[in-house]
């Protein structure tokens, strides 16, 4: 009979559907517990009980456990900072605090009822919201201004803009092709070379372009690139020359793919 609880149909402000779906959504954080009117759930359950002749104790038990858990979840959600504060209270103090809050809420409920009645009374009183049809246009007024401000404004417009230096734009930016050709020529003369040694003395921009040229050559399959470790010198060798030599003369096997 436990399904009497989980199948419980709810029609709340924030949720409409069976209780077990609500639980699922709450556990998945798809609904905030603070959005849920717990009293509404209790009322729905009590109404469901009342519809049946016999008292289903199993269902009541399951419901109590679930609703208590939900209440705790909601309380934590609503008063995250007060958990510690409230737990330090003596039972009498806690009851006092709770009573104070319940009384406050009850007062506000009364106030809401009073406002509702008031609204009903005032329903027959119409008034205009917003401007009148023939209201005068509000006039914008400006304080007295000095004519010198006009002069200043035009003087600012008459100042030649400062000559913007473009020297930083004039960085030497050699074409990649230049390094491609240079490295090809180098590899015709030598089987391998050290990239760092080759670009030593060049500007950072030139070094960057030189590296782009390496990548270009490697993409074309013309060279193999190797590096013994991070930050170790980059070695370049002909792609057809799969045998390269380390500094100490040991023979090392490289392929273009391995780098």
């Amino acid at each position: 009979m436990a399904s009497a609880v989980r199948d419980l149909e709810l029609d709340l402000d924030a949720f409409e559907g069976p209780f077990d779906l609500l639980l699922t959504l709450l556990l998945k954080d798809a609904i905030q517990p603070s959005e849920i009117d717990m009293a509404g759930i209790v009322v729905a359950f009590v109404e469901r009980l009342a519809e049946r002749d016999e008292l289903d104790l199993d269902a009541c038990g399951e419901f109590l456990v679930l609703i208590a858990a939900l209440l705790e979840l909601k309380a934590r959600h609503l008063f995250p900072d007060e958990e510690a504060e409230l737990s330090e209270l003596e039972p009498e103090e806690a009851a006092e605090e709770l009573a104070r809050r319940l009384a406050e809420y009850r007062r506000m409920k009364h106030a809401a009822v009073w406002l509702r009645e008031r609204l009903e009374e005032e329903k027959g009183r119409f008034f205009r919201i917003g401007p009148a049809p023939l209201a005068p246009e509000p006039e914008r007024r400006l304080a007295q201004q000095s004519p010198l401000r006009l002069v200043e404004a035009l003087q600012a417009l008459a100042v030649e803009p400062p000559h913007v230096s473009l020297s930083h734009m004039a960085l030497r930016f050699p074409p990649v092709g230049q390094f491609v050709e240079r490295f090809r020529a180098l590899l015709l003369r030598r089987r391998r070379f050290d990239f760092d040694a080759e670009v030593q003395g060049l500007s950072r921009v030139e070094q960057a372009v030189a590296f782009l040229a390496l990548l270009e050559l490697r993409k074309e399959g013309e060279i193999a690139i190797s590096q013994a470790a991070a930050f170790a010198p980059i070695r370049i060798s002909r792609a057809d020359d799969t045998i390269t030599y380390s500094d100490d003369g040991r023979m090392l096997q490289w392929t273009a793919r391995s780098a």
Partner: protein
Amino acid sequence: MDRPLRLISSNPVDELARTIEALLVVASQPLTLEELVEATADDAERIEIALGLLGERYREGRSGIVLQKVAGGYAFGAAREAAEACARLFERPVERGLSQAALETVAIVAYLGPVSRPEIARIRGVAADSAVASLVERGLISEAGRESGPGGAVRYRVTSLFERVFGLESLAALPRLDDIGEDQAAIRDRLLQVAEARAS
């Protein structure tokens, strides 16, 4: 019926009363005594006399225009006898479909404002976000600064439109709710009884 009218036209406040009529008929909101003093460049006492005459002229049963003392000021509204005709022509967008949650929320803001959303949620026991948003959109509450401290929550208070819609002369016209104070003691006793029963 002729007496106050003759009074208006022969009394020196006659012209002042006409000026006030003019101001009230073009004003977008209730006008306070101070605003009337400023606009008419006349003195408060004479303005109050003039308002008295206008109140006599523009009252239920005598005129379709009714002078109301509302929202801390004076405003013209329609006579109640014209409600049916008004309802055929004008919507009441501010209060139409005001939910129970919104009413409770606006009650909290009216009595305790300026008050923040977390405070409202604490009292109602339910998050107040959508109720607050709907009240702001209707113009019944508006932002009123923030709670102190960095990142303090926005606080809200009721607007003069709230007072107008609920026909309140001012917030002081809200009924005192202190008389429900005894409830707190009753609730506390009940809670303690429950606690003792559990402990025993």
